[in-house]
């Protein structure tokens, strides 16, 4: 199936209007609505079960944690086996979630942060259903909260609570949390980086390079409000920077052309950097259904899996 065919298939399914979705107050419910819609949209999809792994047992050897002994196997065979946990074998995914104040902007009834939190929750729920381990790191100008990647009962709930916590940050430091994550997470895994990237990107490339060098797969979600992309405001006003509180008188009619050029150049710079580092970059507008973002994410993951398998098969 081609990309366009998959998109049209998704569109033919009932995509959830983001505005309607954001009226739901429960974050987990929003994530569940998106994922279930996504599944129904991918009915009889060839990509079903792409990440399923077999669970194994291993002979107990002294020193292993007795908590992981499988007592039912012991009852049948009278031998000690350790249950080989899914998290050890499945994907380990960390979500980097930007909670800086610029994310609290929204021109269409809800903020970028609400949208981005729903996106993070959707990813977490989706991967949790697949049995992957999910971790979370929230940050603004510094790291605020860190939940290690786990697949455990209640962990998803903790992630949802962490995503729903009110933000207190002001500015954005894009590079510092990546470095912190690199030092915390030694095992290779997937890193989903959700931010608006409306900040200088000077040191971002070096930090992302650190992550990729550690063997992590990195997906970047750049979430932008429609007004931020097109400056489609009518009235001239004093524009106040939500982070620095700087005030500038702007007539959008006059400033729109220059602004669009600058923001597009900035986004292009972010994209070019990601491509250079082999990082998946996805720019998402907050008026765009979340299923499409999830689909793009899945599609990119599949594409990478094929590339890896092809490389493995072609290896002499």
């Amino acid at each position, binding site marked *: 199936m081609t990309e366009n065919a998959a998109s049209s298939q998704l569109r033919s399914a009932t995509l959830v209007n983001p505005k309607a979705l954001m009226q739901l107050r429960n974050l987990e419910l929003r994530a569940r609505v998106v994922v279930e819609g996504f599944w129904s949209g991918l009915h009889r999809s060839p990509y079903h079960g792409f990440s399923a792994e077999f669970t194994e047992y291993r002979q107990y050897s002294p020193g292993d944690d007795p908590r992981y002994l499988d007592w039912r196997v012991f009852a049948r065979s009278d031998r000690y086996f350790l249950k080989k946990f899914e998290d050890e074998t499945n994907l380990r995914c960390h979500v980097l979630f930007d909670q800086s104040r*610029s*994310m609290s*902007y929204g*021109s*269409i*009834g809800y903020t*970028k942060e609400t949208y981005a939190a729903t996106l993070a929750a959707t990813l977490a729920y989706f991967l949790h259903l697949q049995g992957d381990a999910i971790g979370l790191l929230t940050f603004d100008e510094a790291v605020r909260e860190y939940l290690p990647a786990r697949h455990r009962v209640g962990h998803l709930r903790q992630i949802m609570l962490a995503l729903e916590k009110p933000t207190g940050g002001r500015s954005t430091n894009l590079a510092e949390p990546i470095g912190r994550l690199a030092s915390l997470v030694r095992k290779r895994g997937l890193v989903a980086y959700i931010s*608006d990237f*409306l*900040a200088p990107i000077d040191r971002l490339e070096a930090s992302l390079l650190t992550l990729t060098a550690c063997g992590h797969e990195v997906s970047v979600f750049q979430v932008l*409000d429609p007004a*931020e992309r097109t*400056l489609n*405001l009518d*009235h*001239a*006003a*004093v*524009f*106040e*920077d*939500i*982070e*620095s509180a*700087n*005030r*500038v*008188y*702007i*007539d959008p009619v*006059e*400033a729109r052309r*220059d*602004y669009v050029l*600058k*923001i597009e150049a*900035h986004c292009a710079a972010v994209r070019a950097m990601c491509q250079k580092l082999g990082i998946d970059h996805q720019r998402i507008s907050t008026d765009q259904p979340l299923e499409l973002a999830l689909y793009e994410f899945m599609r990119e993951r599949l594409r990478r899996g094929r590339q890896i398998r092809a490389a493995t098969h072609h290896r002499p």
Partner: protein
Amino acid sequence: MSFLAPFFLIGALAVAGPVLFHLIRRTTRDRTVFSSVMFLPPTRPRLTHRSRLEHILLLLLRCLALGLLALGFARPFFRRAASAAGAAAEERRVVVLVDVSASMRRSGLWDQARERAAAVLGSVAPGDEASVFLFGSKMTPLVSFEEWRSTPAGARAALAAQRLAATAPGWEEDHLGDALIGASEALADTDVEKKAAGPREIFLISDFIAGSRRDSLQAYDWPKNIVLKLETLKARNPTNAGLQLVADAPDADRLTSPAMRVRVSNAGNSTREQFRVGWARPAGDDFLGAAMDVYVPPGQSRVVAVPLLAKATDMERIILRGDDEDFDNTVYVVPPEKQRWKVLYLGADAADDARAPLFFLRRALPDNPHLAVELVARAPSGSVPAAELQEARMFFSTDSLPPETIAALRGRMLAGKTVLFAPKSAREASTLAGLLGISGLALEDVRPADYAMFGDIDFRHPLFAPFADPHYSDFTKIHIWRYRRLNPGLVPAARVLARFDSGDPALVEMPVGQGRLLVLLTGWNPEDSQLAVSSKFVPLIYSMIELAGGSSDEASQYYVGDFIPLNSGAGAGESTTIRRPDGTTITLPAGAAGFGGALQPGVYLISTGQHALRVGVNLSAAESRTEALPPDELERYGAPGPRSPPDAKRAAEREALVQGTEAESRQKLWRWLLGATLAVLLAESALAGWSTRRNSAAVAQGGSLS
């Protein structure tokens, strides 16, 4: 519609504020929070175009509220035409007071006064009434209200100007207070005639000097509605020094003192300090002998003793030089002349008989600085020389006199002389009858059982007036051993001046022709009474001499305008001729009490028969204090306050203001305007609230939909 405080209408310009705020509000008040302005190019702020004014109704309401508020503060009222017309119909009455005191003789002042008077009278409308008064120490009408009314309207000012041109400042003192009171009373008199109270004005044309007398204003209750307008004249030369004679103590012997003391006073605004003082030559204005240099700072005075010149015989003027204004630079000095009197005593007493009346009478008449009495005693039996009878100014007698002497004495009495007759016994009744020219007069010797005393005394009579004070009025210590009883009813026009305690007359005054006969019905010798040894005797004898015309304190110095009393005794029966300093003479009839026409300074010669008296008349010292008073000085005395030059326009404006205030307080339009302002503000608040709610709802709705 008129306004009481029209300058508050400027406040209506504040409507520019809301208009401006409505114009610039969009650019300054709207704020939009944006995620990041790092990609936003700043736009230059600019005003919204007028055509883009929003909330026009709100703007109109706000402007209306401000306009109504300004209108309310301006205190509008509707003028009633009727009241204004009524006020305009009242006629004005004006009194012009022109100062002709001596200080107005300074250079240039009188010309100014005439010009100002002409200007004031020229401003009087034909329907108004005016009068002109001159004032110095007295107030003299120049043009009365009646003359003003009877003169054609076009000739009134010319009449006053013509009379003013024929007038010149005199030498009198400036009695400003009396003049103002006289002017206000003249206006009050016209009130009675007119039975209306139109505007009344007093124009005071004066140099308004510090020496003017204003004390009478203190007790005066000013009538209302009189406006006092002050036309102050300014002298060309500020320097003025004055010269005044310093009065000596009454008992000082001025004839023997080596110098005359004068005070040199310098006005406060003078520019000179160095002057010269000395005697003047009888003819001419230069000094007689050496002059003295005197240094007097402005505002101060110095007393200088000008020494008498040993050889000069005609020292009657002391002059001051070095002054700009010379009207007060001369004092006329007339040393009082010592009177020499001859008194004739007709009695048989021995000169050294200590029990006889002559002995005591001689000792009761010592010399004093003003009067030297020469007592000549003649026995009644001998003949009295006719020359002595003519020379004698007064006669004393105690004995019976021969008929020829009685006739001579009676002749002198008829000519105005005074005779004291103190009969020693009842036998002298015939002499008394002869002196009185009557017959059938009887005296009776009375010897009281113990003693008699003086009882009822007429202290109002000049003879006893010096004893009127309770300290000296006790005559009861004088015991009288014997006296003569007289029936005064027999003598027509007899006046009993004192009575004994028994009720019998003690001292009787009987007029004889132009003279008088005093009859003392007891003797002062010790056989009759204790009178001669009492403290009352000498003063009583001097009282008799004064009554006879020998004034002991006859003044020789007066001020211009003073009433100069004539010596009644000296002038009895004879007319008095007065020669003024300018050489003119005036004759007063016999019996005139005095002379009030000394209106110029100098030496006056007053001649009555053989008696001549020189009197020096000088300028009042107050006229030398020529520094100008502050314009509000009269207000301290309760006067209605000097106003600036005549300004009918300002008066009309003031009147209109008063009427406007009354009309405004009656109509109170500001209350309605304030209520309307509040109503407009309420409407504005309601409209603004509704508009804000509508906008908020629109924003909320637009935010949730977009």
